[in-house]
C-alpha cells in the first residue's frame, strides 16, 4: 500500500532513463571486466613450459647450403651454454626418428590426418604434474602437449569450413591417435592433450615414450639436435637474451607477441571498464536524485505516515526495497545480455587464435556485489537522512 502511495502517481520518465543508463553501464562493465581479467590471465595456466624457460635454435642463414654453418648443436656448444652463470640448465630437445601420423576421429571436427613431428624435453622444464605426464609400454593413453600454433591452424581450418571453432576445453577432450612406425606395420597410440605451449611448433611427448619409440621404430643416425631448451636463473632472463643475440641464436617470438597483445587489449579494456564504471555511478546518481525527487513529492505522505505512528525504519525499507528491486532487475538483465555477448566475443577471440578460458570471471561477481552494496548504502543513507529530518515536524 505504501509503495502505491509513494510511487504510483509519479512521472517515470527520469526513472526509465536512469535505469537504461544503469543497464548499459552494468552490461559494458561486466563485459569489459570479464575480458580484462581473462586477457590478463591468458596463457598463465595453460603454458606448459615452466617459468624462465625458452627454446632456442640457430639463426637460419644460407650458410648450411654452402657448408659454412651447421644448424646442429654439438656437445661442446651445449656444455658452453650450460657453463654460463645465468643459465640454470640446458638440454637438447629430442625429436622423433620415425614416422608419426596424427589422426583425429572425433564428432566435433571432420576426420583429420597429418604427418607430424614429436619432440620431448626433460620433465624439469615442464609445468606438468608427474602423474599426468607418465607413460610406460602398455599405457592406455599417451599424454601430449599441443603447440598453440597447431590449435590455431585447426581453428582456421574449421572456420573456413563453417564449423564451430574449438576452445581449449573442447580440445582437451578430443580423441587423438598417433600412428607410429613404418607404413606397413604402424602401431596406434591413443593420446590425450594435457596442455598447450607457445614455445614449440611440434607436439611434446614424454621422454620415455620418445626413447622407446625411437629405439623401436627409429633410425639412430637420423637424430639431430637443432633445438635446445634453456632455463635461466631467476631475474637473469635478460642476460640470457643478450647471450642469444650475441651468438646468433634465436628463440620463438610468440611469447613476446602475446605479451604485447595482452598489454594493448588490457589498456583498451581498462579504459572501457573505467568509462562503464563511470556510467554506472552517474546512473546511480540520477537514480538517487530521482529518489530525492520522489521523497520531496511525497513529503506530505511521509509526514502523515510518521504522525500516524509508522516507524521511520519502516518507511526507509519501502524506498530501499523499491529501488533495490529495480536495480536487481536491471543487474540481472545486464547479466543476461552479457552471456550471449561473452559467447560472441569468445568466438571472435578464438578465430583470432586466442582461446580464452570460458568460465565467468570472479571479478564479475565481485564488482556486482560492490556496486550493489554502494547503491544500497547510498539509497539507505539518503532516505534515512530525509525521513529523520521529517520526523517530529
Amino acid at each position, binding site marked *: *500500500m*505504501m509503495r*502505491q*502511495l509513494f510511487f*504510483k*502517481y509519479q512521472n517515470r520518465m527520469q526513472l526509465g532513463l536512469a535505469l537504461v543508463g544503469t543497464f548499459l553501464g552494468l552490461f559494458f562493465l561486466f563485459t569489459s571486466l570479464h575480458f580484462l581479467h581473462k586477457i590478463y590471465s591468458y596463457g598463465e595456466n595453460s603454458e606448459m613450459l615452466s617459468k624462465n624457460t625458452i627454446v632456442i635454435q640457430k639463426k637460419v642463414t644460407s650458410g648450411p647450403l654452402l657448408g659454412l654453418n651447421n644448424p646442429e648443436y654439438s656437445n661442446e656448444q651445449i656444455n658452453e651454454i650450460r657453463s654460463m652463470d645465468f643459465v640454470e640448465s640446458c638440454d637438447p630437445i629430442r625429436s622423433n626418428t620415425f614416422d608419426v601420423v596424427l589422426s583425429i576421429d572425433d564428432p566435433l571436427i571432420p576426420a583429420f590426418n597429418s604427418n607430424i613431428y614429436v619432440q620431448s624435453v626433460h620433465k624439469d622444464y615442464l609445468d606438468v604434474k608427474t602423474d599426468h605426464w607418465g607413460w610406460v609400454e602398455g599405457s592406455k593413453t599417451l599424454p601430449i602437449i599441443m603447440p598453440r600454433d597447431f590449435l590455431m591452424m585447426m581453428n582456421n581450418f574449421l572456420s573456413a569450413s563453417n564449423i564451430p571453432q574449438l576452445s581449449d576445453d573442447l580440445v582437451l577432450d578430443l580423441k587423438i591417435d598417433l600412428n607410429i612406425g613404418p607404413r606397413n606395420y604402424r602401431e596406434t597410440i591413443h593420446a590425450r592433450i594435457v596442455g598447450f605451449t607457445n614455445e614449440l611448433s611440434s607436439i611434446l611427448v614424454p621422454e620415455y615414450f620418445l626413447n622407446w619409440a625411437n629405439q623401436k621404430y627409429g633410425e639412430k643416425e637420423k637424430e639431430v639436435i637443432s633445438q635446445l631448451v634453456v632455463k635461466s636463473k631467476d631475474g637473469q632472463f635478460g642476460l640470457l637474451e643478450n647471450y642469444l643475440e650475441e651468438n646468433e641464436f634465436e628463440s620463438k617470438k610468440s611469447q613476446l607477441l602475446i605479451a604485447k597483445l595482452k598489454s594493448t587489449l588490457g589498456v583498451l579494456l581498462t579504459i572501457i571498464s573505467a568509462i562503464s564504471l563511470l556510467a554506472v555511478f552517474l546512473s546511480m546518481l540520477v537514480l538517487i536524485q530521482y529518489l530525492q525527487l520522489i521523497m520531496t513529492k511525497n513529503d506530505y*505522505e511521509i509526514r*502523515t*505516515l*510518521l*504522525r*500516524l*505512528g*509508522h*516507524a*521511520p525504519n*519502516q518507511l526507509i525499507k519501502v524506498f530501499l526495497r523499491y529501488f533495490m528491486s529495480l536495480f536487481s532487475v536491471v543487474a540481472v538483465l545486464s547479466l543476461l545480455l552479457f552471456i550471449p555477448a561473452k559467447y560472441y566475443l569468445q568466438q571472435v577471440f578464438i578465430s583470432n587464435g586466442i582461446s580464452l578460458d570460458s568460465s565467468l570471471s570472479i571479478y564479475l561477481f565481485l564488482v556486482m556485489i560492490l556496486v550493489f552494496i554502494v547503491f544500497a548504502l547510498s539509497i539507505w543513507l539518503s532516505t534515512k537522512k530525509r525521513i*529523520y529530518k521529517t*520526523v*517530529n*515536524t
Partner: protein
Amino acid sequence: MHFKFQQLCPHVFQHQKLKSTIWNQVIEIKDDDKVLIHAISGTGKTSFIYYLLGLRKDYTGTIFIDHKKLSEIEVEEFTQIRKHKISTVFQDLQLFENLSVRENILLLPEIAQGYQIEDAKIMLDVLDISDKWEQPVKTLSFGQKQRVAIIRALMKPFEFLICDEPFSHLDEQNTLKCTKLIEKRLKEENAGFILLALQEECTFEKLKILEL
C-alpha cells in the same frame, strides 16, 4: 497516560500578558480525563496540539508525557506513543487524497484490538458514507472527509484521543452520530479525550473546560 504542561507558552505570545488556563500555567491531563479546550481563532489551539504531539518546538516551558520530558523522548519511543497511545483527528484531516477511503484506513500502523478493517465500513455506514468506501478521498466533500478522518482515528488503538475541530463542517445530525461513535470508542479503550473547539457548547457530556 499522563500529560503535564509546565509554564508552556508559544514564542509568539511571550511578550503578551495572556489570560489562559493553559499558557504559562501548570496543568495536568491524565488517564481518562475528558477535556474541551475552548478558544477563539488565533490563540494557539492547533499549536497546542502540535506541541503535545512533539511536532513543533517553538515554545518555552516544559511538556511531560508519562512523567518524561517530551524533549528527551527518542524518535523510536515517540513512534510507539503515536502508534499505540495517541490517536488524532487533525484540523486539516491529513488524509491521503489519491487513495480510497479503504486504503486510507489500511494505512494505519495498527488496528484497535477486536476490530477489523470491515468495521470501518460499518462506522461509515452509521455516518451515511459507506458508498464512498472505494472512492478516492479527493472526490469527497470536506464534511465527508472529516467523517473519514474521525473513523480512521477511531480505528486505531489509543489511550488518548485528540480531536482538533472535528465537526467544523458537519451538520448537527452527523455531529451527534460522530459524538456517539467517539464516546463508544472512548469507553471501549477507557481512554482520555482532548477536544479543541471554537464553541463552548458541545455534544459531549461532562467535559472539563479549559480556556486558551
